[in-house]
């Protein structure tokens, strides 16, 4: 029986450092979690463009891979994978899929782990803003309060809510592949998110897709405020490094 850290294709391909950070945090709380090589894509990005037969075939393939590798539990750091594994795997496979899936933030917020975390920030009082990703807030078991609980527990860190938060948050605008298909004009919503940062010194995100969109829009528009992935933020706090450095 294996407990798998499911990194997700995007993070695993483009954000290696974040993956390493996430693995470090998860294993510090539960050393029985590990990563595996050659993990297949969960299929999340294909749901709206695949037909039911090919989608089912794919999730069956992935489920079979889980079985072969004796996976019984998953903690994923990808918002998209979490949403897809918990919603559509159940829809396509029913009882055939019986793996316990949690998101990184849920895992951290669990009483056992949360008490072990004990995060302290020794720098000057810092105001942060958290962006609710669609994948997390729309999931079958939505992840909305967990990141807030974690942020609020950190000494010297204050959460500054954006005007649009929780189920009312503004989508980064890149979902559905919109940014890659129709680049022009699709950055409008991301800019709105930055506009709402107000007193927050940093934009925290727990979704690698949103992160990709935000950093791109930030560069294109010379926006100064940093965007930091939740995993990187936590590790920086743990290691006493300035969390504002991207």
């Amino acid at each position, binding site marked *: 029986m294996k407990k798998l850290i499911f990194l997700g294709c995007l993070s*695993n391909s483009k954000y290696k450092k974040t993956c390493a950070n996430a693995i470090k945090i998860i294993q510090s709380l539960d050393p029985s979690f590990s990563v595996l090589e050659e993990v297949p894509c969960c299929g999340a990005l294909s749901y*709206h463009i*695949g037909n039911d037969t090919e989608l089912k075939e794919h999730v069956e393939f992935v489920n079979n891979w889980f079985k072969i590798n004796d996976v019984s539990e998953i903690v994923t750091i990808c918002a998209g994978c979490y949403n897809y594994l918990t919603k559509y795997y159940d829809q396509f496979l029913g009882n055939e899929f019986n793996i316990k899936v949690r998101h990184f933030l849920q895992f951290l917020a669990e009483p056992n782990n949360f008490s072990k975390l004990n995060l302290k920030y020794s720098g000057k009082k810092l105001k942060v803003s958290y962006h609710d990703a669609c994948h997390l807030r*729309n999931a079958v078991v939505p992840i909305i309060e967990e990141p807030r609980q974690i942020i609020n527990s950190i000494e010297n860190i204050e959460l500054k809510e954006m005007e649009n938060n929780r189920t*009312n948050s503004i989508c980064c605008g*890149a979902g559905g592949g919109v940014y890659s298909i129709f680049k*022009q004009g699709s950055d409008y919503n991301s800019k709105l998110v930055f506009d709402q940062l107000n007193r927050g010194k940093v934009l925290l995100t727990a979704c690698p897709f949103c992160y990709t969109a935000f950093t791109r829009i930030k560069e294109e528009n010379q926006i100064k405020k940093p965007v930091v992935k939740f995993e990187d933020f936590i590790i920086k706090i743990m290691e006493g490094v300035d969390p504002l450095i991207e």
Partner: protein
Amino acid sequence: MNESGEELYNIVKEKIETSQKEGTLENQFGNFWKMACTIKTRQHDMRYLYEDTSREFVDRNRENLTEMREEFVKHMDLYVEKCIDIMRKKNFIVHYAKSNEEAQTIFMEELGDSKIIYKSKSTEAKDIGIIDILNKNNIKIKETDLGDVLVQLFNYTLPSFQVGPGAHFTEEQIANKIKEVYGVELEPKAQAIVDYFRSTFRNELLNNVKVSLTSANAISAEDGTIILGENEGNISLITRATEKHIVVCGITKIVPNIFDAVLMTQLQSRINNVSFNYINLISGPSNTSDIQGMSIQGMYGAKEVVVILVDDWRTKAAKENLIYVDFLKCIGCKSCIFPCTASRAFGNIYASKYGLGATAIIRDYIHNGIEAAVNDGLFLCTGCENCYHWCPVSINCGEILKSMKKEATEKGLAPLHLEQYKEKIFKDKNPFL
């Protein structure tokens, strides 16, 4: 992606490019729309008029409303039968049309020799093809809602927001247009423009209307009462100072009883942060019993009230559990458009001839198929489901659009980039390799 997929992709891309260029009509609308979306969604949490915010109002009523609509969809045929029965007893002339074509024929027969019709704002009339058939028969359509009057005045043909279709025209533009069309010089101020239409058009509405057309916000199945909310008074005038008032709407406008109808109208007002200064409850044609207790029809108000209830796609969607079956619950509040990611960014590019946003695209899909939906910007939907979170009857347009995207992909209409993603996922098991 096949040839028509490529063609549609290029059409949408060109439309976006046009909308990004300053000075174009699309750009003017887009800028207005971005502002409207920000203000409107901000108003959801404001407490400027009532004790509660509109979000609190919607949240408090969502469960009941969703249940009410689900119950209606489940027993649609029974509610329709009950509604028609009571309406006929109350001297409405009621027609049940199985298809849009049938509704159009009935409508033209009811219109008779009249060559002109005065109408209120109505998405249903567009959905049922009444506007098309009127145009085809050279019947003059006189819009009466000021927003639609302006749209007609400007001969504006791009999709616009159904609730305020002319709201993006500036005071200067309107004053100039009035000078150009009517030769009247006005101060470019909203008040002066309103005064102008009040002094000219109001008389016409009071004296000249023979046949009028409206939809309904809701119809109560229990007592056959039609409910129509408005703020200008145009509906009040054209439904009273007329010979014949024709109501055309889909059967999904029916609700179990009058309380549900009032709640729905109230919700439409609260969720859009607009006021219905007049709420019309119409339970039959004008009538008097003041001479010997004899009931005589046609006193001061409409002599006849004709109701054309249209099924078309509706029963089929419920029976066959079609991908848009959830859309049957829609109460037409149109509030899903403000928080929509695609709508905010792309304004009237993410739209159809039925109006802005996902629901207008779903209507286009129902009547004109998947190619029409792709042309309307189907692939601009990010799937964020903001529409669902805000919907007072819990319709997930995001999921409906996902199913539409699947159909588009099967027909070779999905943008190339997405197809490549899919290939990589299914073959390489990693789209980012």
